[in-house]
């Protein structure tokens, strides 16, 4: 079991990495009027067959060979559904996959979003060959992190280098604080 929604995001986004995506879009959107937190993880990777989509929420299904269970997607699904939300996967072979999970914001069983900055920073710096588009919204306010913009400026300078890594960390933290204001999500 994960303790933060952002850990689920990190875990499920790794599936997109394995699916050989070149662009992964992460969206976190909190809508207090609708009492809804929506998370979308969308990639342009290899996609899944209808048969695989059916089985992917089964904890005893995995494509791995190192163990016999696959809990990433079932964890995410159960986190959403136990917080009055819903869970949906759409996928097309050769096109990509989109995983959408929604949560009731004020549900007592909703996990905190947790350290989403650490999740995005980890994904971005550990997978430099993949582009990430992270969108964060709380009601009307929001911000975007697009690694394609960063890459265009930086050329072949690594995201892992000290200054760039810190820049990305601060970029996420400062924008998130500005958007969140007093609210903790």
């Amino acid at each position, binding site marked *: *079991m994960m303790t933060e929604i952002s*850990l689920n995001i990190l875990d499920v986004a790794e599936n997109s990495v394995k699916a050989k995506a070149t662009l992964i879009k992460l969206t976190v959107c909190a809508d207090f009027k609708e009492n809804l937190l929506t998370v979308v993880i969308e990639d342009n990777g290899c996609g899944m067959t209808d048969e695989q989509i059916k089985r992917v929420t089964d904890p005893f299904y995995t494509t791995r060979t190192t163990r016999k269970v696959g809990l990433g997607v079932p964890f995410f699904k159960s986190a959403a559904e136990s917080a009055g939300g819903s869970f949906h996967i759409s996928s097309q072979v050769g096109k990509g996959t989109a995983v959408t999970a929604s949560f009731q914001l004020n549900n007592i069983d909703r996990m905190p979003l947790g350290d989403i900055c650490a999740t995005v920073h980890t994904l971005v710096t550990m997978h430099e060959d993949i582009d990430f588009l992270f969108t964060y919204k709380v009601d009307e306010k929001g911000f975007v992190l697009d690694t394609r913009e960063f890459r265009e*400026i*930086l050329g072949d*300078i690594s995201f*892992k280098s*000290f200054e760039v890594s810190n*820049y990305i960390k601060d970029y996420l933290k*400062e*924008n998130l604080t500005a958007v969140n204001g007093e609210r903790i999500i």
Partner: protein
Amino acid sequence: MKSLEELKAIRERMQGQVGMRGEEENSIRVVVGMATCGIAAGARPVLTAFSDLVQEKNLTNVTVTQTGCIGMCMYEPIVEITMPGKEKVTYVKMTAEKAAEVVESHIIGGNVLTKYTIKD
């Protein structure tokens, strides 16, 4: 607020250093397991700790990367360290605090912290 202008300034400063880094042959590799089992057991702060420490201490010969599940889920978070010419060392049940110790003792000092490694 961070602007892209700031990133351009970083690039200007760094352009002279490009090519200094990268996977050299004599480099030390730190590999953190980041599958569901690892993440659920707390691998994200461990990975962050290694990356931050390697940067802070300017250990340019150390590469921090991640891997999937190696089939020992009950010992996660697992960290493997490979040094040139030496056998791979596997640390188990890691935390950010233990990571700091491993950086000091093993990566910088060359002494394996056997109290945190897996026993046969």
